[in-house]
């Protein structure tokens, strides 16, 4: 268990010889033990330090050298991330454009020529520009202010020639106020063990990157760079979100064992990647990866994905903050399909509603979950829908792409979508473009309506995919983001389980396959149940694939079938839980929840 003592208030931590524990936000899972490299934030530099006239030319030279070095560093990082996909590249490119901005560059030089020290000039010019952004009414622009700050800090660091010595970071834990994407790429190359930062959101670029690099990270640790002495021993627990500074011998021992167990576990799981996903009595279940970013395909590959069951194409829209043109979409889809080839890829068309801010969507709805979202939105904006279908068709030429429609409630929506798809095919044919003429068109079953009419839907759709999150929310009439009803939202509710069972049976009767792509698919307590219910495919975050395969490979289909039958006969979720607990053995479902 995690050490409980957390110190609050104004203690002079640096004087503490003994262990103390800092609490932050767990941002990337994993545990690491190592020595801290504390990157000191730039102490307050006065923007008005004057220098003697004879030093001006020397000061200018210092600035130019630091600037050139940093531009060079950025270029190198850009080169390194080429393979990481467009989002990372775009961030770095923008940073580079800011660094080389003529207003800033000339502004700093002029300030120095006026007799200010190079540090003062940098601080005052950057802060001037930053003010513009902070005062902007646009939240997006305000965010940019942080990026400008980051670049300022790097420029000052480069000036002091104390730019981070990445070579010496191996087996260390980096403690910083904040880190840029460039920093993280470089640290990763240098082989750091973990990251601790003072600021940063769970969804910030840096946090996402540390997760995709599998580097344990705890963020939001207040005053970390002030409190943690450079070189001190640290334990970073990315599961619990805590940092243990100067750990006591017993705590250290506990964590060493945890690290050992994690590594052992990873080694064992790693060996599973190449083994087939089948039960002890030989029943095959395809295990697929969900894809948010291009990188997830590589991660799926490493974790032995049999394909990709849910590519959330709306991420492209969110990332670009607008609807991308056909060419941009085509390139993204093709890249995913090529990386996955010959494994199948299911791309879900834009699943957007007014709860996501994107220009072109309805401004605000009273109840977005029940509003113009998913297929409803696309059918109301057929220009956007057609562009996407054309891009998808063009990316389908290797015949490993399937299209999936979200938020379906009627046959009409599927038929209309198919008609539009056929129109796009005709257009492309006339343009002489190659595509998969038999591209499968599937339907997400995520509304009770779709579940109930699945018999009809199975005749117009080529496959089903059950989105358990929405299916649960709509079946139980409980908003999944509303804490007041979070006890009602339960994807193990017998009504949800029976609907899933009904959908699978109907699909199989009609000769089509069913995959499950909601949270339930990756839930440790659900695997046996879902296999027993005859699901064909499970699609989960790539990082969950090996654990999932491990569970599939250690269960027996014939036994799972009996258990599923028993559980489906429950009348309330207490009964479901009790039966699940019994079936899974010594673990309670609650405990499994925590794994």
């Amino acid at each position, binding site marked *: 268990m995690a050490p409980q003592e957390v110190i609050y208030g104004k203690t002079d931590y640096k004087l503490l010889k003994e262990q103390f524990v800092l609490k932050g936000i767990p941002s990337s899972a994993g545990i690491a033990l190592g020595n801290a490299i504390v990157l000191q934030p730039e102490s307050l530099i006065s923007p008005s330090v004057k220098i003697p006239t004879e030093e001006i030319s020397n000061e200018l030279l210092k600035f130019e050298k630091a600037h050139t070095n940093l531009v060079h560093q950025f270029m190198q990082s850009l080169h390194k991330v080429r393979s990481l996909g467009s989002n990372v590249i775009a961030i770095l490119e923008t940073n580079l454009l800011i660094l080389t901005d003529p207003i800033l560059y000339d502004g700093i030089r002029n300030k120095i020529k006026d007799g200010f020290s190079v540090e003062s000039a940098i601080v005052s010019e950057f802060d001037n520009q930053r003010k513009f952004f902070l005062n902007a009414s646009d939240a997006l622009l305000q965010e*940019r202010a942080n990026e400008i700050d980051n670049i300022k800090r790097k420029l000052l660091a480069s000036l002091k020639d104390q730019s981070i010595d990445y070579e010496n970071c191996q087996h260390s834990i980096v403690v910083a106020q904040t880190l840029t994407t460039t920093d993280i790429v470089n640290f990763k190359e240098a082989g750091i063990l973990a990251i601790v930062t003072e600021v940063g959101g769970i969804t910030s670029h840096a946090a996402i990157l540390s997760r995709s690099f599998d580097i344990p990270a705890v963020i939001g640790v207040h005053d970390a760079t002030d409190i943690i002495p450079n070189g001190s021993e640290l334990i970073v627990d990315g599961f619990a979100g805590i940092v243990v500074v100067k750990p006591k011998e017993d705590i250290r021992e506990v964590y060493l064992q945890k690290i050992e167990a994690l590594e052992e576990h990873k080694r064992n799981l790693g060996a599973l990647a190449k083994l087939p996903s089948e039960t002890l009595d030989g029943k095959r279940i395809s295990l697929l990866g969900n894809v948010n970013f291009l990188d997830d395909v590589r991660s799926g590959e490493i974790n032995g994905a049999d394909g990709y069951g849910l590519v959330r194409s709306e991420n492209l829209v969110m990332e670009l903050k*607008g609807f991308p043109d056909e060419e941009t979409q085509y390139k993204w889809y093709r890249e995913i399909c090529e990386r996955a080839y010959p494994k199948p890829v299911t791309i879900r068309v834009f699943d957007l509603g007014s709860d996501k801010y994107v220009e072109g969507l309805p401004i605000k709805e009273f109840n977005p979950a029940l509003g113009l979202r998913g297929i409803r939105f696309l059918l109301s904006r057929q220009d956007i829908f057609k562009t996407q279908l054309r891009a998808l068709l063009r990316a389908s030429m290797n015949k490993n792409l399937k299209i999936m429609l979200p938020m379906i409630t009627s046959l009409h929506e599927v038929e209309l979508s198919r008609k539009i798809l056929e129109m796009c095919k005709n257009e492309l044919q006339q343009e002489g473009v190659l595509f998969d003429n038999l591209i499968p068109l599937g339907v997400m079953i995520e509304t009770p309506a779709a579940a109930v009419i699945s018999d009809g839907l199975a005749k117009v759709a080529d496959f089903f995919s059950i989105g358990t999150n929405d299916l649960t929310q709509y079946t139980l009439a409980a908003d999944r983001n509303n804490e007041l009803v979070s006890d009602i939202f339960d994807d193990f509710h017998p009504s949800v389980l029976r609907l899933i069972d009904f959908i699978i049976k109907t699909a199989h009767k009609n000769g089509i396959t069913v995959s499950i792509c909601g949270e339930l698919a990756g839930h440790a307590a659900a695997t046996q149940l879902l296999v027993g219910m005859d699901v064909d495919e499970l699609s989960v975050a790539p990082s969950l694939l090996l654990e999932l395969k491990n569970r599939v490979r250690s269960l027996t289909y014939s036994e799972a079938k009996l258990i599923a039958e028993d559980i489906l006969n429950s009348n309330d979720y207490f009964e479901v839980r009790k039966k699940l607990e019994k079936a899974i053995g010594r673990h309670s479902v609650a405990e499994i929840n925590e794994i």
Partner: protein
Amino acid sequence: MVEKLVKVVNRSGIHTRPAASIVKLASKFKSEIYLIRDKFAINGKSIIGVMTLAAEQGSEIKVRAEGPDEQEAVDEIVKLFESGFGEI
């Protein structure tokens, strides 16, 4: 000097990505390039300038270029605006 008036047609206006496209394009030309809005002129090669322009959909911007390739510069930049930065 060449000038042309252009309208921001893409729905989300000039946010970071279009700003980056404008600056990258403008930097290819030798001419001085300005974007002028409400008598407020900014350097078209400065991403900070272009971003702080905060031009929303429908706003009118004057593109001005002065230098050896001014005609080509204005034409290309106007074309980028009219294409909606590939967001339409």
